Every structure is written in structure tokens, then in C-alpha cells.
């Protein structure tokens, strides 16, 4: 799925290169792999396998011998209106964030990948939110959104009085979406930018000499070559929005009511506030299946369009 693009050093001599081509690999002690495999097994593999098992039991996190109850946890989850709302919120956030964040990222990348003199400075400032701690970004925006605060004052200027973005159940989810997009748009921009800088300048110049306008050059040269960064960007923002937790906890904690509850925050409340451990894990499995299905479908869709 993933490879790196940094250029490795070149070989010392051609003569040795032909000889090594015949031998495949070395006899390396398996002890080299031991630390990595030990960490992976203990921290990722075993807990995940246990988790999938517990999702089908009535484990409460305390009792030693949970009993197998089949799909009861999953059935109960989908009978619970809170889960349905959290699922709806998560899907809405994932779709809106993925589309808007990538549209903004693409526009910013196109703007920065031009001949403007300030491009390096602008790129740095546009990227800065990406490295900030999400919980700090959440609190920063909580202040920006307070009633009569900076954003509410701006809204008043365009004729929206008494805006209480995060306090109103109708608008709170859009407030959280804005926070997330602000933090991650620079990330999408940088990935698009890496793709754009891989486009040889001769191609665009030749097209310009042949009379292709800026829009035609973008539609026929830049855009087709941006398909790979686009797939990376969509996958990253989908996975990220399904795990959304920090920014929600810092701004709304899932409220008002359940209007900004996501699957991740609900999982946290189910498991650690209400001690519903096994239904919390069942929710984790649902999140995983959703993420897997959507990223897989998304990759297939793009591959099919590539093939035809």
C-alpha cells in the first residue's frame, strides 16, 4: 500500500551488482526481528484478537469468565438510538470533512505551487496547524466560537445575530467540522503539492505553447497526475474522521445533547463512564468494519476508473 520516495544512495560498483543479483537475501539472525515482533504482538495483535472475541461476550471488564452471547451486543447497539445518532454524526462528519478539506487543500496547493514570491512563507503558515496538539486546537476554537466572541461578532456583521455555534444542537456539529478542517487542510495541501511538484514543467510549458489555457492545462495535465495524491488524501481524511476524538472532547464533549457524539466519543463514554465494556468493544468492531469497507470501496472505485 505504501512506499517511500526518498532517494537511497547509489551502488559502489557495477561489477558487484551483477554478482549479487544471483543471490537473494542474506542469512540474518532472526533476533533482529525480535524487538519489533514482540512489541507488535503484545501491544497490537493480542489485544485486538482479544477485543474481537470480547465483542461477542457479555464481558463487563471485571468478571474473569465472560460467556459467549453471539451477536447480542451488536443487536443491542443498533437498537440504541444514541448509537444510531453517533453513527449518523460520524458519517456526516467523515463525508463533509473529506470533501471540503481536500477541496481546500487542492486550492491552497494550486495557489502555493505558483510563481508568487511569498509561497514558502504562506506554505509554512498554512501547514502550522497540522503539527499542533489537537486538544489545544479544540480549546482555541472553543474560545473563537463563544457567544459574542470573535466568530459571533463576524457573523453579526453579515446579519446573523446571537450565533452560538457550539452551544446550539443545530450548528454544533458544523463547528466541530470547521475545527477539524482548519487543522488538517494544510496536510492535504502538502500531499497535493508533492504530487504537483512531480509534474515536469516542460509538459505544462509545451501545452501552453500549443495554446492550452490555464483551465485546460489543469484539467488535462495536472488533474490526471493528481490521482495518486487524491487517493492518499481521501484515505487519510476518512480514517482520521472515523477516529475523531480529541477535537470533540475539547469543544463539545459530544453535546449539546448527543448532537456531536461520534462513534469514538460514544465508545469512550460507554466503556469508561458506564462500564459497558463489551458493547464498547462491539462499537470498536463496527468502526473498524466501516473504515475498512469505505477505504476498500474507495480504492476499488479509483482503480477501476484507472483501468478503463
Amino acid at each position: 500500500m505504501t512506499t517511500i520516495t526518498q532517494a537511497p544512495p547509489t551502488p559502489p560498483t557495477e561489477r558487484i551488482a551483477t554478482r549479487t543479483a544471483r543471490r537473494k537475501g542474506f542469512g540474518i539472525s532472526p533476533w533482529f526481528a525480535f524487538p519489533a515482533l514482540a512489541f507488535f504482538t503484545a501491544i497490537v495483535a493480542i489485544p485486538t484478537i482479544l477485543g474481537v472475541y470480547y465483542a461477542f461476550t457479555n464481558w463487563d471488564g471485571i468478571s474473569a469468565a465472560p460467556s459467549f452471547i453471539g451477536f447480542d451486543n451488536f443487536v443491542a447497539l443498533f437498537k440504541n438510538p444514541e448509537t444510531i445518532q453517533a453513527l449518523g454524526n460520524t458519517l456526516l462528519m467523515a463525508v463533509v470533512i473529506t470533501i471540503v478539506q481536500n477541496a481546500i487543500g487542492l486550492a491552497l496547493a494550486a495557489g502555493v505551487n505558483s510563481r508568487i514570491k511569498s509561497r514558502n512563507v504562506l506554505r509554512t503558515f498554512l501547514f502550522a496547524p497540522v503539527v499542533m496538539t489537537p486538544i489545544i486546537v479544540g480549546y482555541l476554537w472553543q474560545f473563537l466560537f463563544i457567544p459574542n466572541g470573535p466568530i459571533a461578532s463576524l457573523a453579526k456583521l453579515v446579519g446573523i445575530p446571537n450565533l452560538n455555534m457550539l452551544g446550539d444542537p443545530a450548528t454544533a456539529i458544523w463547528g466541530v467540522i470547521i475545527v477539524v478542517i482548519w487543522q488538517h487542510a494544510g496536510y492535504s495541501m502538502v500531499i497535493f503539492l508533492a504530487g504537483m511538484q512531480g509534474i515536469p514543467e516542460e509538459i505544462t510549458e509545451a501545452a501552453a505553447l500549443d495554446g492550452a489555457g490555464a483551465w485546460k492545462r489543469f484539467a488535462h495535465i495536472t488533474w490526471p497526475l493528481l490521482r495518486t495524491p487524491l487517493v492518499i488524501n481521501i484515505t487519510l481524511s476518512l480514517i482520521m474522521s472515523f477516529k475523531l476524538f480529541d477535537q470533540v472532547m475539547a469543544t463539545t464533549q459530544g453535546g449539546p445533547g448527543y448532537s456531536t457524539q461520534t462513534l469514538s466519543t460514544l465508545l469512550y463514554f460507554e466503556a469508561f463512564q458506564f462500564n459497558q465494556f463489551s458493547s464498547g468493544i462491539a462499537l470498536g468492531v463496527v468502526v473498524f468494519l466501516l473504515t475498512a469497507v469505505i477505504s476498500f470501496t474507495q480504492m476499488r472505485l479509483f482503480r477501476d476508473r484507472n483501468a478503463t
Partner: protein
Amino acid sequence: MNRYTWRTLVLEIVMIAVTAAFAFPLWMLISVGFRTAPEVAQNPMGFPTSFNLDNFIGAWTQGELGSAFMTSIIITVTSVVVLVICGATGSYYFARSRGAAGMRWYAIIAAGLMVPFQIGLLPLYRIMASIGLTGNPLAIILISAGVHLPLTVILYTGFIKQIPAEYEEAARVDGATSFQIFWRVLIPLLLPVTATVVILNGIGVWNEFFTPLLYLGGTDTVTIPVRIYGFVGEYGADWGKVFAGLVMASLPVLLLFFLFQRYMIKSFGSGLKG
């Protein structure tokens, strides 16, 4: 094509305006931190009238940010060192060992990137509790090392596979052992990808909130994000003090970013490719 035309000028002005709007929250972060609570309540967007440091002193002492910084630094540095060692040694075996076993293990670890942490979260918590590591920063180091391992191994293995094997082959002919080859030959070649690994993992571990909250919440040794969460809970209404705390908490990362922005942006942008 190389000329700076009036269209470029228009684009430049538009982009500067867009970036200014984009950076407005960052300006608010700094300006509110320097103002007193009544000033902020009266006019949230006003400029700081004086270079008022009371908020910063208050946030530093009442927020106990000093000890939180120490905890965050120790956890981040140790986790990154563990990740570099495990990632480099493991990837050396995965990429270079004879037979298919290496790449099979690699595929399993790489698949870990797709598994959401939520499924294993609670069983892992029970395991950590049973060996007495809840409330111990060591738990965060172990978990961070495990969770960030798939990306680290993907980066290292991909890089090693692109390095021609001739260097190692030549050393082997001279009678070097696997360990000597790894230490003397491979490690120096891995420096560029190690920089990427350090940047991505360092920022990832430093910013982590959920796991430290779960394991360290309520103890004396908490990381910066967890401390900020508690601090805002206590002083939520005093925005000046809260923002002074937020400024100090984000300063190390932002400072490093503005110093090394070229490398950092490159790491994020070119680290992963489809």
C-alpha cells in the same frame, strides 16, 4: 512562463489574504494570552495593550506545566528511541533476510496500520492493569512504541529495499557479521529516513491525548495534553490564563516546526505514497 505577470500579483494578494484569515486563530492564541480576563470579555478581538506576563506566570504555576513538560519530553524521547531501534532492526531482517519469512512478517505488521486502536483498547487496558502499569508513564511508552510501529516499519523497510545490497555484500566478503554490517554499514545509510521517522513519531507521540488520559489521568505524572485538559476544566472561564497555558504548551512544537519547517513539511508530504 517565467514572468511575474499582473495575474501572478492578483494571485499573490489573494493567497496572502487567505493565509492571513487562516492564521487568524494563531494570532488570537497569542493576543488573548497577554490580556486580562475583563479586557478579553469586553472585546475578544482587541490588541494586547501591554506586555502582561501575569497569565503566563499563573498558568505555569497553577497549571503545573513544568512537571507535565518533563513527563511529555521523557515519554516522547524514549518512545521515539524505542521505535527507531525496533523499526530499523526489524526492517533490516524483513527487507534483507533470505526466504519469504521476512516479507510475510512485514505484511502482518504493515496491516496493523489499518486496525483501529479502539478494538484492542480495553483488553490492553486490562492487561496493563494486571501487571500494575496503569498510572505509570512506562505504559504510554510501550503503547506508543507498539501503535506507531507499523508506519515506522513501512518507512524503514521501503527505504532499505531501495538501497542496493552491494554495500552489505562487500562488507560480508570482508568477513563482517550481520550485526557489524547493520551497525557500521546500514545505520549511516538510514539517516534520511530516520529523520522522517523521528519527526512523524515525535509529533504523533507528543500530541497523543486519549491513551495518556486513560492511563495517567488523575495521577501526578501526566503529559502536556492531559494537563491542559485538566487545567481548562479548572480555569475554563479565565480565557487569558487558559490561553497563556495553551501558548506555552504549543510553543515547543511550533518552535521546532518553524525552525525545521522544510524538513517537517517534506516528511509529512513525501513520507507516504500510494
